[in-house]
């Protein structure tokens, strides 16, 4: 089913999406916010530019964006997947605790800020290009992978990655010698078990966007993890 989003506001568009059970394509989207917020059991394809907070609180739906997406995609999402064929704005995957976000291009600032994991929930975000500053700020769980495709000699992440990170895992393509990490995390070369785990995410990325997983995985990767699961335990007193 095709919905012409032109001249429809966010509320109306979301109401139309909720009414239908079959897969939907939104055409002519231009800045409508909160699309598919909280939705489960839906398959949505978006042509045009969706507005901020696309797929906020997403609960199982699948969203494909054919072009770029704006800020706060997948804010607090719980399950489902969001696939962006272009680049993505700031704070992608803000506090997500489940589901997957795949971005073909670059991510803006603060991607994966306060991502977390809960019991069987393990959120995953794969960024094909580069990421801006404060990647994984306050990351508390889940997995962030940055592939740096097309970055050539540029740094694949901006300043201050992993600030306040205290859980989860980050994969960054390359040796990351030019990246300064905070003292509470450890950055080490990915070992074979890490690469096995990464292969799962990269293969899914390559299936979506049509590229060669072996080639990507043939380069070295760096794994970043926090030193402690509870860095604030001894902030005032050991207990």
């Amino acid at each position, binding site marked *: 089913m095709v919905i012409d989003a032109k001249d429809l506001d966010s509320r109306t568009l979301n109401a139309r999406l909720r009414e239908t059970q079959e897969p939907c394509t939104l055409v002519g989207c231009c*800045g409508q*916010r909160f699309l598919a917020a909280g939705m489960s059991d839906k398959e949505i394809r978006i042509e045009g530019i969706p*507005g901020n907070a696309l797929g906020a609180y997403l609960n199982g739906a699948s969203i494909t964006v054919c072009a770029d997406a704006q*800020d706060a995609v997948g804010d607090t999402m719980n399950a489902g997947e969001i696939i962006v064929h272009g680049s993505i704005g700031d704070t992608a995957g803000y506090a997500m605790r489940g589901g997957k976000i795949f971005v073909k291009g670059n991510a*803006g600032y603060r991607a994966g800020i306060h991502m977390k994991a809960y019991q069987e929930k393990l959120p995953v975000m794969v960024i094909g290009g580069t990421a801006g*500053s404060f990647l994984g700020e306050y990351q508390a769980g889940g997995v962030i992978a940055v592939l740096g495709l097309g970055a050539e000699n540029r740094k694949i992440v901006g*300043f201050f990655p992993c600030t306040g990170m205290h859980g989860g895992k980050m994969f960054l393509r390359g040796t990351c010698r030019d990246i300064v990490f905070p003292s509470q995390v450890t950055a080490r070369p990915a070992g074979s078990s890490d690469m096995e785990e990464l292969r799962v995410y990269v293969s899914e990325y390559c299936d979506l966007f049509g590229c060669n997983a072996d080639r990507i995985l043939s380069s070295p990767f760096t794994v970043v993890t926090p030193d402690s699961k509870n860095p604030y335990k001894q902030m005032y007193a050991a207990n």
Partner: protein
Amino acid sequence: MKKEGQVRIPSGCAIAAVISRDGNRMSGERIYHAMKPMHDRSNGLGGGFAGYGIYPEYKDFYALHMFFDCRETRKECEAFLKERFEIVKSERIPTRTIPAITDEPIIWRYFVAPLKSLLVSMQIDEKEFVARTVMKVNAELDGAYVFSSGKNMGTFKAVGFPEDVGVFYKLEEYEGYSWTAHGRYPTNTPGWWGGAHPFTLLDWSVVHNGEISSYDANRRFIEMFGYKCSLQTDTEVITYIMDYLLRIQGLSLGEAASVVAAPFWSTIAAKTDLEDKEKHIFLRTVFPSLLVTGPFSIVLGFDGGLMALNDRLKLRSMVVGEKDDRVFIASEEASIRVMEPDAEHIWAPAGGEPVIVKVKDGAF
């Protein structure tokens, strides 16, 4: 109702801009349509626009756009202006009566030239004279407010949503080589016509999305140099900082950006270009009180160009795109797509990284 400056309420906002590098003139209509997809970023308490190159017939005169609370104030102000300027034209700014915009003040414009004899006796240049006059009117003449004072440019602002403000001021009848736009969501002040953006002084105009936390530190410093922050809004102080750094201190745009959005000391320490490192240390040391902290994304308009800048932590969004001779800047890509569906090279500048676009020499 209490005005700006009388009450402080403890911001979202929307900005957009377009410029033609070839100096081609564009109608103001497209810029107000560009604000529509960002409607929810504003709350109807302020919208405004600045257009450059819109008064070619009067390009040698300062265009003073003014709000008056009543006819008597206007008469009183005109008497004051006549003592300082030759007024070549004075007229009501054309507006359209629409339900979305109400309670408008008296809105007037004057095309003026400072009296030469005064410039000689005061031993100051034309721009300084105009700036001081604007400060004097805004601080001392109750009920009168100059909201635009540049040459061959003009600001149009009101209480309302930006797309309605554009219709109200008939922006489709103006043509400029660059336009900036703002939708306001006031967080600290109640929202009055004068408090809408852009804020201007001479040909500088600033549209701003954000809420700066260094307001008082910046204000205390800038008021030492004769600027009067009469409205308690952070954008006003940014405008005066830009005038001070660029006009008075003669800094380049890039240097001014490095003052207000200075990199962290750790980032400066890690710079490998020693000359650049030295310059950043110098600027942070000389102008520490002009570091602007807290979230902001701004577009500074000036004679012949635009500069977009984010705070160094990039706590607000901003994207840039291009098509042919035109460059687009907006809080959201959707807004750029309204101005130009086929815009190319969409990218998000990093925090503290200025994007400076100038019209080719002599093209306007």
